[in-house]
């Protein structure tokens, strides 16, 4: 593993792993406490439509996926506001339509040469310098938002009706959380792929939630746990020549299993 560190692709992979894990820990916490897990899953799959569109038009993949994911987030925010009781149906619909659009655009692209698997299961070893800037920039925005609007985000997440009564624009913060989730999902696609992204956003958070007594602590701890899982998964992936995304998720699941077992033994 040590000799691998001299390769720039490995350095990129490690930096990307850390950046994405921290972002996933923070945003995953918000997704879990706001009960938006299914919603984040919908956004992740919808963004495949953006990947297909970007391939077809020859645009940067990140740009296409980001635009599509943010579009899906805004649509879901709007629909949630209009009709909260049917939101699961709409998410299911957006989820499938987004993927279908992606598949059709890839079909239409002459000289099809995109490795579909790399978007479904991640390609952390193919992270470019440009990708790292994008990930770092997004993490900076996320940190800025959660530090300066912590109280509002906490109030909206814990009890949105009450937050509204105290004069907080709950719609704005709900939409903001959704947009940040969409962008986090996009960068996490690079690391674990869009099918596995939900596990990355929820497993470390689930462990952290049990160990924290504040939202801030939960975000911080989730980020740390996610980083540990990602780097361990990356090591497995490199050492045994396995798909990186799947290795990271299985390491996370094993970590969760150990945590639950330890908890059971303790009580």
């Amino acid at each position, binding site marked *: 593993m040590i000799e691998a560190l001299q390769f720039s692709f490995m350095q990129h992979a490690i930096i990307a792993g850390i950046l994405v894990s921290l972002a996933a820990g923070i945003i995953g916490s918000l997704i879990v406490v706001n009960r938006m897990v299914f919603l984040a899953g919908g956004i992740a799959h919808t963004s495949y439509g953006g990947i297909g569109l970007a391939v077809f038009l020859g645009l940067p993949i990140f740009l296409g996926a980001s635009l599509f994911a943010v579009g899906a987030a805004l649509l879901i925010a709007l629909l949630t506001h209009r009709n909260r009781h049917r939101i699961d149906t709409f998410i299911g619909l957006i989820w499938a339509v987004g993927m279908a659009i992606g598949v059709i655009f890839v079909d239409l692209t002459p000289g099809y040469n995109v490795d579909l698997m790399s978007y479904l299961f991640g390609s952390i070893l193919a992270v470019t310098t440009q990708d790292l800037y994008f990930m770092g920039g997004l993490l900076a925005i996320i940190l800025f938002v959660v530090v*300066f609007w*912590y*109280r509002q985000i906490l109030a909206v997440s*814990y*009890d949105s009706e009450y937050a509204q*009564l105290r*004069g*907080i624009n709950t719609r704005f913060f709900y939409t903001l959380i959704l947009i940040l989730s969409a962008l986090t999902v996009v960068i996490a696609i690079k690391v674990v792929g869009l099918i596995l992204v939900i596990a990355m956003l929820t497993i470390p958070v689930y462990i952290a939630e049990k160990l924290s007594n504040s*939202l801030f602590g939960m975000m911080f701890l989730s980020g740390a746990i996610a980083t540990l899982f990602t780097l361990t998964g990356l090591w497995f992936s490199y050492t045994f020549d396995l798909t990186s995304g799947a290795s990271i998720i299985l390491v996370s699941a094993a970590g969760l299993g150990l945590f639950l077992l330890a908890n059971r033994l303790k009580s």
Partner: protein
Amino acid sequence: MSRPVIEIKNLSFAYEDQLVLEDINLTVEERDFFAIIGPNGGGKSTLLKLILGLLTPQQGEIRVLGKPPQKSRDKIGYVPQNTNINTDFPIKVIEVVLMGHVGERKPLFGYGKDEIACAMGVLAQVGMEKFANEKIGSLSGGQRQRVMIARALCAHPRILILDEPTASIDPQGQKEIYELLEQLNQTMTILVVSHDLSIILKYANKVAHVNHSVVVHDISDKSKIFHTHSDTEHLCEIELLQMLGNESCDTCTSQKDDQLTPDIKSKNTKEWRENR
């Protein structure tokens, strides 16, 4: 003569096609301990949301402290229904209380010293200051409800509105909550939605029965509603049901109770229990 703090005139409200409240007239006066009762789906929660300005009526007018509800929100303390949701949420008691301050002027990030002092003050007022750094999920239902009351008090409200504050709380906890409310009633108006008729009758001075329309009863004279023909003073639910369900309360006395056949009495009691 007390001043009105909440005035509702000719109010109607419908969710899409379904008319929930029709031609409501209601006045809550300063320092009232005002209870709202009625069957599920009768419009109790809708009425509260209208008073809080979370919903807007299609017809009629609501004035809270002489202004539209949205403009009086900073003078209203609100304790929402069901505090048993979200108990996994990683949040400390003090942070929940500090939420009462959100929206007021505040430091760039974190919490101000004055805010924390104020939050500790209201926690002491409800007897929960020892639990300030506990996780909210580790408290009992009654303790959690006290924290929610503290959060509402954080805004120094003139009106305290509670939606079923004692649902799923043990009898001792319920009694303590109402004693606390009675004490708070010395300085502010209390408006409470509840199913606990026996408790309400002990503490409230007015009761509104909400079921599509509203019937208000002044019950400040407690002697009228207590049974007097038994050694231990107790409440007769049947009498109350009759009294609250009918427009003509003055006809409802203990004699009326005696006229009912035992069958009807037990039937009414059974229905009442089921409604609960």
